[in-house]
């Protein structure tokens, strides 16, 4: 009966398929039968039946690894020796890791602000215009691509070729520079500006998300408010500043915090664009490098814990705002 675990020929695979389907039918039938059997089920059993499995899965797949990571972060590279908070001290004192922290701060501050700002301005500008849907689609499209694909696309935009005979530029930006009579630049190599050029990619992806959510909130502003404001003589930038932005404040907070959380976890874009070299590493990429390439489990775990700690206040703020806005309603 080995073929049940290791089917290689077609008949074996067919038998395996039949066995799998039969198993499915039997298990399904048994569950359905068992569900209908008792007429009165105590409430606690129902609750346990629904909440139990997810709780178990959460405990095993989320809580246990989290505690284990916390535990590991107090041990040395191979987990053989207790080192106290040495790993955390290393994060804040070593020069290389300070660059990582600096980059993370840049990312978490700039990406949510810029993405929300562009999304908001864009949503406001295209609101109720003739080509609104088309314009929104253009900005929303990047949301549909994975971070890896976005990274690859932008790597081509930034691609560098020397300005010399017989060599053609293949990067869009450098071609523009050459047409303007300037020298081509190594966008992804120059520190520390390269971090900003990678941040652009994340903003490009998230502006669409911000725009969609904010656009919906802008449309939800009651007409009588805007009308009253207009009668009071407010228009243009004043309308945006004193009516639109305060009215959609809860949505703004949600967008800012959501983007901030996804920014803290950014990995794919940096990994594909620079391989976290040239001083562009952030906490998530450094965590991967420490744990899986340098086998420094302790420091890797400490970085993961730090990431977790950084996310907590953002989530707490997010939840608080949501609750506040629901109370208003």
């Amino acid at each position, binding site marked *: 009966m080995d073929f049940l675990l290791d089917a290689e020929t077609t008949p074996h695979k067919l038998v395996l398929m039949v066995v799998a389907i039969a198993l499915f039918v039997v298990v399904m039938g048994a569950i359905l039968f068992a569900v*209908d059997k008792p007429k009165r089920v105590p409430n606690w059993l129902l609750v346990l039946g629904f909440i139990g499995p997810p709780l178990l899965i959460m405990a095993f797949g989320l809580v246990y690894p989290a505690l284990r990571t916390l535990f590991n972060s107090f041990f040395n590279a191979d987990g053989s020796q207790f080192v106290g908070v040495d790993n955390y001290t290393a994060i804040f004192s070593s020069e290389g890791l300070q660059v990582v922290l600096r980059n993370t701060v840049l990312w978490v501050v700039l990406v949510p602000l810029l993405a929300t700002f562009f999304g908001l301005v864009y949503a406001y500008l295209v609101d109720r215009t003739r080509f609104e849907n088309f314009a929104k689609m253009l900005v929303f499209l990047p949301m549909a691509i994975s971070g890896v694909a976005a990274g690859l696309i932008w790597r081509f935009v930034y691609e560098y070729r*020397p300005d010399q005979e017989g060599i053609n530029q293949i990067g869009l930006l450098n071609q523009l520079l050459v047409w303007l009579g300037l020298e081509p630049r190594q966008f992804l*190599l120059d*520190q520390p500006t390269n971090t900003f050029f990678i941040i652009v990619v994340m903003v490009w992806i998230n502006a669409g998300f911000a725009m969609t959510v904010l656009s919906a909130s802008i449309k939800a502003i009651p007409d009588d408010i805007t009308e009253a404001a207009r009668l009071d003589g407010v228009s243009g930038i004043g309308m945006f500043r004193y009516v639109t932005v305060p009215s959609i404040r809860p949505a703004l907070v949600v967008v800012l915090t959501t983007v901030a959380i996804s920014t803290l976890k950014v990995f794919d874009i940096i*990994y594909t664009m620079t*391989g976290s070299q040239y001083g562009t590493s952030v906490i998530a990429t450094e965590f991967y*490098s420490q744990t899986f*390439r*340098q086998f420094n489990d302790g420091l890797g775990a400490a970085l993961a814990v730090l990431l977790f700690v950084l996310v907590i206040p953002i989530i707490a703020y997010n939840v608080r705002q949501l609750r506040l806005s629901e109370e208003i309603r």
Partner: protein
Amino acid sequence: MSVRQTTRRTRSAAALAAGLGVLVAVSGCASQEQAGVGGGGENTAGAEAAESEIDCTQFEQFGDTDGAEVEVYTTIVDPESQSFIDAFGPFTECTGIEINYNGSRQFEAQLPVRVQSGNAPDIAFLPQPGLLAQMVSTGAVVEPPQAVVDNVDQYFSEDWKNYGTVDGTFYAAPLGANVKSFVWYSPSAFEEAGYEIPTTWDELMTLSDTIAATGVKPWCAGIASGEATGWPATDFLEDVVLHAQGPDVYDQWINHEIPFNDPAIAESLAQVGTVLKNDEYVNGGLGDVRSVASTEFQAAGLPILDGTCFMHRQASFYQANWPAGTDVSEDGDVFAFPFPTINEEVGNAVVGGGEFVAAFNEEPATQAVQYWLSTADWANLKAQASNPGWLNANLELDPANLKSPIDQLAVEQLQDPEVTFRFDASDLMPAQVGADAEWQQLTDWIAADQSDEDTLNNIEAAWPQ
């Protein structure tokens, strides 16, 4: 809708989901098992190899192994894996042992995870002695049988046996090999311009100056390689350290008996800098010095074909990167000359790399595979089955079995007792140094024009206490 109805519906949905889960789990197992077997490919050379005969009696010492299965876990994936699978053909015929060949690009990250979780493969091809030492420290690696030790003593040099040895215990026989100390050039372009192949560092520098004087950059280089960016620069440094300072300093350097910022290493780094950080010398067709850091290593040598540069220091395996149709031979489009001697007392030397066969259990079938991979029969069969780019350090590997002249040249160097061989230093250093700090700092050395002193001090600081 009543409350009763709602609960029943949700229950059915939950049951359905549970049932599907079982189905997915069962079929998932089936496809995973299959993935281990590499896809078949047409390879006439492999078929030939399978037909040639080997002596089946040599496997009798392992008893009746018919029907056993051995999982081989490795970094070597399709298309290179096909020749491995082909070279196992006669072995399977003799012993009845099925090989489950499982290649993964995530090998280095996955192997420790598999070993720690008690799911170690039977055999793993480890690409670095450093990884071997790390695996040995987990206690999971078992010593090979005496037959393997005898084979290694017979067919391999002392050096290679040492690289499979951890703390005085021999664990892993060498498998593949590559030679890094090569400078690629274009024989036809050299002939046209009347340049001679340099055999010493001084001749190399004179040649570089001559070429630079004509307005062409003599060298092209590139060290970008994703997250591993920087490794080609470490190879260059290793070549110069070995050739200029000699094997003794090289060994002390690896074992941290001298610091990374020792004056001897500093001298060598400066010597590398006369090429890699010299605006007159690099980077032909690719930009200024800083473009060395951003050029992918695979593409870095290609300007030789365009005539925008003349020389490119890279390993024997670089031959795979030339476009299809390029004539790689001594008087063709491209070829390589051995890295020139720097110090007469050291003479000819090569830096190289390779894989090692580590076993995680003492099953007879596993030991039979270990044994087979350490024989000269296997080395020659594998050579016949392989495309250009594969070789090993087996002293009885007949260079004539290799198809590419560069591989033949590399094997001759490995087998020549006059040539000092040393393993890639960064592969032997702790991962924090050899696979992180050294890569990053040498990248900054070029990309951010960091000084030699800072570069070496920073690498030294990364050495685990």
